[in-house]
């Protein structure tokens, strides 16, 4: 006799249960990172390159790119999933920018889990990026589709 596996059974690992953490992704903010990102995304904008431009815009100095934080959130989720699933949706609002010398930690937690009618297991994620002080740069929501 054979038994059909319960929907989503092959994805039942503690890593993918509700309240499980997404391993953090930590990166330093500053011109070394911003210049590299500007070079690939053609984002040579004054406020990201020049303290005076940042100050003229109301900040203590040059500020980091929201797009780079967006990229780091992707790195965190994709490195965690590997070939076990794929990121289906991500959304975030930028609250405050990174400043030179900040250490930015992207983190997250599995906030929901459901099995769709087609048997696919989907996880909802609460994600964020914060400074070493705990101040949040962004809060984000993600949705991943697990393989198998």
């Amino acid at each position, binding site marked *: 006799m054979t038994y059909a596996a319960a929907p989503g059974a092959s994805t039942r690992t503690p890593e993918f249960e509700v309240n499980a953490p997404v391993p953090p992704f930590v990166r330093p903010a500053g011109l070394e990172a911003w210049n*590299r990102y500007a070079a*690939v995304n053609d984002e040579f904008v004054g406020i990201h390159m020049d303290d005076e431009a940042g100050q003229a815009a109301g900040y203590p100095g040059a500020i980091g790119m929201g797009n780079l934080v967006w990229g780091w959130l992707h790195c965190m989720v994709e490195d965690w999933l590997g070939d076990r699933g794929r990121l289906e949706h*991500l*959304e975030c609002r930028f609250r405050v920018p990174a400043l030179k010398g900040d250490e930015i930690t992207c983190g997250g937690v599995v906030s929901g889990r459901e099995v769709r009618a087609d048997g696919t297991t989907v996880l909802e994620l609460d994600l964020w990026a914060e400074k070493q002080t705990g101040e949040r740069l962004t809060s984000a929501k993600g949705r991943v589709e697990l393989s198998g």
Partner: protein
Amino acid sequence: MSELGLVRPDMQGIVGQPYGRQVSYPISASDIRKWALAVYFPQTPPSRYADPRAAAAGRLVAPLDFNPFAWGAAEETGTGREIEIGPEYRSSGAMEHYLGVTPPELRRALNGGVSATYTGVPMRPGDVITAESAIAGYSEREGRLGAMLLTDIATTWTNQDGDEVRTRRMTLIRY
């Protein structure tokens, strides 16, 4: 005119109208590697991006946030309604002029937020991506930086086979 006076009737009139179509240059393995090197800095990107055997075996896939339009497009199709604007508007990300409308008098801009939905269709070396964008809506609010105009921009990417790769919505804050 809106309450704060930032959204003019002619701006409201272009909401939902496509303002640009771009076709990328073919994505190269080098583009993908450089992107991964920049985003993962100061650490080395995962081997799935850096290992030359991955590219040779056809396993190299671009990161989801990869932008094949960063350094220009191979082809751009206008609306036929473009008007000239000064360079100060371009640095604020203005797009209204593509539809014949003068951009608002706001010279500074921030990225307010992003939302993207990925279809599971990957971007690989050799792929050519077509992007089509439209203003999805305007709103305004008072913030720490004064009166701010929020512009939601919706962009859809499809590949050379007509398969949708992703939809993206970005909120541009101008002030």
